[in-house]
């Protein structure tokens, strides 16, 4: 297993795979196994109605490449630019026997489809007294680093985490991405599956066979006893890098990757803080009502007596994502900011 992979071990043959291919793998195998799994979204194949090649994109990030040639346009459905109708179609289909995987090319597009996500799909089961199930996955790319500007770089995971009825999955490496996607597809509830766009080419060792990683179980990419670092999605990369630097200084960090933020493995965090007494939370999202303060709040409520120092959160500032590279780099949490926060909670 390489750096970013998870604590679990799986037997059998493995290959070095990118995050992109790991997700593609998971979807393809589930589609082979289960004819009710479909994929829909804009350019999930590409080339619909055109004179040139089919499957021209396979998703603008290439994640669904090859699915249409194998499963046909009936199961890999290019749609008009109508995100509300995409999510609605997925939700309605999920209530009627399919297991749709809907793509929001950028998760920033929840703005035009949010009602179908939070008032419809998320609430069916409860509103209808438990009599319906809505097994659907909404895939979306999140995060900065691509110089894509304010409307294509947001995280927004905190918003969906706020909504009861949604499960929110944020893999930080290819191994987790595959196992969590398999679980997401097999899960009977609506799952928001957020892929950080800077990680698509990240590789690690991934089992060839299908495996499902249960939701609500954190991974522990580094173990330690001086300070707990909780990080999510691409921030895990920075947390691990910081932990490795600090390890050389004799500071041992317990890095926790919740992997799914709803449900979230609170216990893993609380148990770690019981040992370390110190907590740094790293999240690329905006700070107010965000995941970082959510975790801080949980620990301040349930793990207060373990704490030996103020909690430190490392997040983006309370601004939109700026375009210019210098600004975007300053906006994003990075290794240096994690190091500074860890030193602060230790020095305090």
């Amino acid at each position: 297993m390489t750096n970013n992979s998870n604590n679990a071990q799986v037997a059998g043959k493995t290959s070095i795979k990118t995050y992109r291919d790991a997700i593609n793998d998971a979807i393809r195998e589930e589609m082979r196994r289960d004819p009710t799994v479909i994929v829909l979204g804009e350019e999930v194949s590409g080339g619909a109605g055109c004179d040139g090649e089919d499957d021209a994109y396979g998703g603008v990030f290439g994640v669904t490449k090859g699915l249409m040639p194998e499963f046909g346009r009936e199961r890999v459905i290019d749609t008009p630019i109508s995100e509300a109708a995409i999510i609605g179609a997925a939700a309605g289909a999920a209530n009627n026997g399919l297991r749709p995987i809907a793509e929001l090319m950028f998760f920033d597009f929840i703005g035009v489809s949010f009602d179908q996500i939070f008032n419809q799909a998320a609430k069916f089961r409860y509103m209808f007294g438990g009599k319906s199930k809505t097994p659907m996955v909404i895939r979306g790319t999140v995060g900065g680093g691509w110089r894509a500007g304010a409307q294509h770089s947001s995280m927004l995971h905190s918003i969906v985490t706020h909504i009861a009825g949604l499960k929110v999955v944020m893999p930080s490496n290819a191994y987790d991405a595959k196992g969590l996607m398999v679980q997401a597809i097999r899960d009977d509830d609506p799952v928001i599956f957020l892929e950080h766009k800077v990680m698509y080419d990240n590789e690690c060792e991934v089992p060839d066979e299908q495996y499902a990683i249960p939701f609500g179980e954190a991974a522990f990419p580094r173990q330690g006893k001086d300070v707990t670092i909780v990080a999510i999605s691409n921030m895990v990369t920075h947390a691990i890098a910081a932990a490795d630097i600090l390890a050389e200084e004799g500071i041992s960090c317990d890095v926790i990757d919740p992997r799914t933020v709803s449900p979230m493995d609170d216990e893993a965090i609380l148990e770690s803080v019981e040992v370390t007494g110190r907590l740094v939370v790293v999240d690329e999202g905006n700070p107010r009502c965000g995941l970082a303060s959510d975790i801080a709040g949980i620990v301040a409520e349930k793990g207060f007596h373990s704490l030996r120092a103020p909690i430190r959160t490392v997040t983006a500032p309370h601004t939109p994502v700026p375009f210019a590279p210098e600004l975007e780099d300053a906006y994003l949490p990075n290794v240096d900011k994690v190091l500074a926060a860890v030193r602060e909670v230790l020095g305090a």
Partner: protein
Amino acid sequence: MPYQEEFLLRAYRSMRTIREFEERCIAEFMGGNVPGFVHASNGQEAIAVAACIDLSDSDIIGSTHRGHGHCIAKGCDIGGMMKEIMGRSTGLCKGKGGSMHIADIDKGMLGANAIVGGGPPLVNGAALASKTLGTKNVALSFNGDGSANQGTAMEAMNMAVVLQLPHVFIYENNGYAEGTAANYGLGCDSLTDRNAGFGMPAECVDGNDFFATYEAIKVATKRARDGGGPTSIEAKCVRFDGHFIGDPQLYRGKDEVKNARKNQDCLKIFRDRVIKEGWLKTAAMDAIDKEIKVEIEQAVADGLAAPHPDPVTDLMSDVYCSY
């Protein structure tokens, strides 16, 4: 006789049940037995029944905030409905949904929807499932003149055409969206023409005339089932009550409702027609009226006697299938 007697009696029974149910809902709401917001569909019964009478349980409908009639027409149990609307734990949704979120998946009733325009994208999904799985089920969405202006409804129409989904879009044009005239909210002269522009067959019918509405929807449903894609049916009709129960309706013209109840009552029109044509006897319909009175009476009594949900266990259950 172009219709079987059994069919006509079934249609009449269904319409009368809706009428009676709604009128009783209004009374029970006024009497304090029904919490929340309730939107009654009395006056619009013919459309619900015309749309649903030929459907099986595996065909799907998606409804609106004004959904009782659609539920009843689709075969939902009126006892379970009344309990739901009263917020009882034995209601169709265990009392968690209420009038605006009533659903009955087993009957192919995908849910009322308290979000105007929330339904049509979902009904596309039901239609897509039918197409993908090859089940030949059709899906119908109910829409209002007001909800026609919600972007979600328009997106859904285009997508239904693009994917050739077996989806019949029914627009109940009752002249109002709350206290705003349909003619104001719709910038176009004709919603039917606007919908035709999306590339689907579109027809406008007199929604007070059960037969006209039934025939139009029948063609549309058949087309959908045969793989011919979506259709828009606009049915002009009258809302007999307020937007919500308790609405003072100051925006309506003097005597408008009175006249409509007199001249545009779809039940009266149905009765007059079947009698004129000699298809049914008055006595048969009167007998149904009596039976339904009893049934509704029973539904209310059962509703009032039904248990309330448990604030601890019921509150926290049914959020997820597993967590």
